[in-house]
């Protein structure tokens, strides 16, 4: 296949795609975003401080976002809403912590491997039990498994209850690539290793969802009965996608443990964390591949940093989220094409900007009228 820009003819429109792997390519605009994203990711530790952001916090956001990318495989394609994905994030984190605290494993990459094995095994087991269920039953079952794990860890001396486990061996942080690092060196090496692995995982996910397997998952999401009739082994495919989805969470949780060096049940395994991971996907745009990642970064930043800006920081976080849900229902990344189209339209016909202002003003006026009427009825009655 040609490595040069590929010109396709789709429904009479000419579409240019820059091929990345066999059969898959990006539009020029996507290519620009992807390039900027890559530069941003690799320069993050150096750029973040310049604009007053904490890159460790952004790093944690990326990790939760990656777990949300995993969850999104189920949400977007099989249309299953999991309320229990913290089980895999926490499972990965505790995989690292247990190996370090109880078995003195000191190499970070081995710990990470352990995390992936533990979290993915959990996903295999839980996936086996939930794959046959849909809708609210699936959501509640995943939530129940999550709570069972949380309660077990919270009340078990082996996991040191809610005080959690240190990811330090004799007080020292793990080695990475069998080398000891300074505090900053450790964080940087961990970050860049994670980013490289994450890009591979994103690419793999992209290939997966565009493969026949991915199409089969779409079919399952649209109608299970029909999917079964055309010969798709529905439960098996859901089980497999659940496992892959858990693997992403387990990897992210493992890195989180290596970064934080201390694992407690509440920030990793609690069912609210599952809700947050789900919300990250919706916030960033669950119809896109990288949306959940962006959602993760934004939500974690808000949850951690807003308390330093305002007293009622939960209210601020809530307002931001409400604004996004109301004005960007497709999520941040999911709304980008609409936004681009709007900008392009206004550049072509600047006159329509006045129309927009008029319709916005009309909408506000209508809202105020309705509110006034309601208040009048409440205070003075219908007549």
């Amino acid at each position, binding site marked *: 296949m040609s490595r040069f820009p590929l010109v396709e003819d789709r429904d009479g429109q000419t579409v240019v795609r820059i091929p990345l792997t066999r059969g898959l390519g990006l539009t020029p605009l996507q290519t620009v975003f992807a390039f900027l994203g890559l530069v941003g990711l690799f320069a993050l530790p150096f750029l973040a401080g310049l604009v007053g952001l*904490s890159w*460790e*916090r952004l790093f*944690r956001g990326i990790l939760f976002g990656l777990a949300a990318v995993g969850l999104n495989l189920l949400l977007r394609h099989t249309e299953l809403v999991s309320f229990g994905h913290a089980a895999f994030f926490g499972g990965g984190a505790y995989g690292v912590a247990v190996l370090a605290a109880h078995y003195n494993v000191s190499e970070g990459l081995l710990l990470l491997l352990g995390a992936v094995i533990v979290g993915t095994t959990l996903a295999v087991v839980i996936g086996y039990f939930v794959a046959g269920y849909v809708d609210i039953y699936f959501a509640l079952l995943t939530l129940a498994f999550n709570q069972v794990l949380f309660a077990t860890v*919270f*009340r078990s*001396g082996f996991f*040191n*209850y*809610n*005080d*959690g486990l*240190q990811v*330090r061996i004799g*007080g020292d942080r793990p080695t990475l690539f069998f080398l000891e690092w300074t*505090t900053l060196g450790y964080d940087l090496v961990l970050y860049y290793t994670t980013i490289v692995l994450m890009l591979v995982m994103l690419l793999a996910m992209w290939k997966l969802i565009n493969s026949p397997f991915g199409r089969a998952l779409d079919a399952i999401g649209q109608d299970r009965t029909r999917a079964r009739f055309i010969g798709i082994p529905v439960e098996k495919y859901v089980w497999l996608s659940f496992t892959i989805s858990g693997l992403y969470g387990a990897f992210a949780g493992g890195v989180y443990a290596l970064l*934080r*060096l*201390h694992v*407690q049940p*509440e*920030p990793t395994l609690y069912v609210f964390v599952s809700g947050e991971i789900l919300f990250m996907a919706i916030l960033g745009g669950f119809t896109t591949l990288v949306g959940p990642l962006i959602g993760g970064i934004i939500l974690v930043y808000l*949850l*951690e*940093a807003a*308390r*330093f800006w305002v007293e009622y*920081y*939960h209210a601020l976080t809530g307002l931001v989220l409400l604004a996004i849900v109301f004005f960007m229902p497709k999520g941040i990344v999911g709304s980008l094409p609409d936004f681009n189209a709007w900008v392009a339209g206004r550049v072509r016909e600047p006159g329509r900007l006045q129309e927009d202002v008029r319709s916005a003003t009309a909408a506000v006026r209508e809202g105020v009228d309705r509110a006034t009427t309601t208040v009048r009825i409440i205070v003075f009655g219908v007549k």
Partner: protein
Amino acid sequence: MDRRTVMKAVGGTALAVALAGCSDLLQEEDDPIEDAEVPDEPIEAGLQTFLEGAPAVLGVQAQYGAETAVRRINDNGGIADRQVELEVVEEGEEALENYQQFVDDGMDVTFGPISSGNHEAMVPEINDQGVINVATDGTVTTLYEEDHPPEDNQYSFRFQNHDVMEALAAAIEAVELLGEDEIDTYAGINPGYAFGFDEQEIFAAGIEQLTGAELVYEGFPDLGTDDMSTHIEEVNSEEPDVLFSSCWGGDATLLLEQGHGAGMFDNVELLVGPVLYGSANDLSEDLTDGPIRAGSRNFYWDQPDTERWSPGDELVAEVQDEYGVLPTAHFMSGYGAVTAWATAAEKAVRLLGRWPDQEELAEVLTNHGFFTPAGYHTIGPDHQGYSNAHFGELAWSGEYDAAVIEDVNVYAAKNVSPPQGQTSLDWIESW
């Protein structure tokens, strides 16, 4: 102790005396600290504590305490002329991240957290970052005894007594009241998380060593539960001589409410609760009936008697005036943590003739002694604060419209904590 002794013991420095609650005693005199080279800008300090949800019962008291100490420091000219600015944030589950943010924001010192799990997560990070943290609580005993012994810990300190001191004081209190031979059985209802398990383990070790009593029931309701009846029924059917409970906040109130409802206090000789008095402002008069000895950690506002101890009296008046509550031990957690650091900082300036760096300040803070209205406190070589532990009969005060404790017993730190270098459970076993 009279005021003159207090003044002599603290070296008569303006700040130390003000924080001990005796500022009216000072006279103008030449102070070498005035010649010290000290930066002009104010000291920036961060406090993280629980400001919302169930644990805010404790957390907000810690905030009041820290704010009161800072107010007194600033009203008395600051620390070596430097005013203190205190930023308070919600601790949540992100204490480690909050500490990192404080450091990024250039804080000179940080205080908090309340949660022991949060504290455990922070200690290695504190030593990596090298900005002193004086924990208000986070009192799990193994933290400095086993997990972070002095050789591995330079910058992390804790003011409030650790768990062994109140759990053992509870055991001794039970023996003092009922007599060694009268205690054959005991039971425990403790919150089902690390703190509750820690307290029950130490109390069990202590009471068994002191009396040879047998454990008949051990229950761990969830923290913040809305029902303890199954645990209370178990206690009713076992009828233990002593019931131990480290429940706090809403859990303590619930235990007393449901315990009274189910007649639990007819079936036990004594309830000892090391942090029961933390709920002082939330209890009602009828809940204070029964054979209940409530602990108040390292501070009870009326000990020494406020009629004979003006620093205590003035503090209660100030807190009532400012916040409309009675100060509890968690108030002192905040007040004492700030005071420990502030008096050590002033001492360091006096010694060095300039503002100390973090390493020097940590050195001075280790083995540092200072006064608050609660009395004299020391920070040990293990970075743990040591103060008296308090227990008394739970009762009601019409004057304050709040719970009080009467007939208060005070336990010296050395009687309820192991010698340096020994772990608590080993020490108790060696009795």
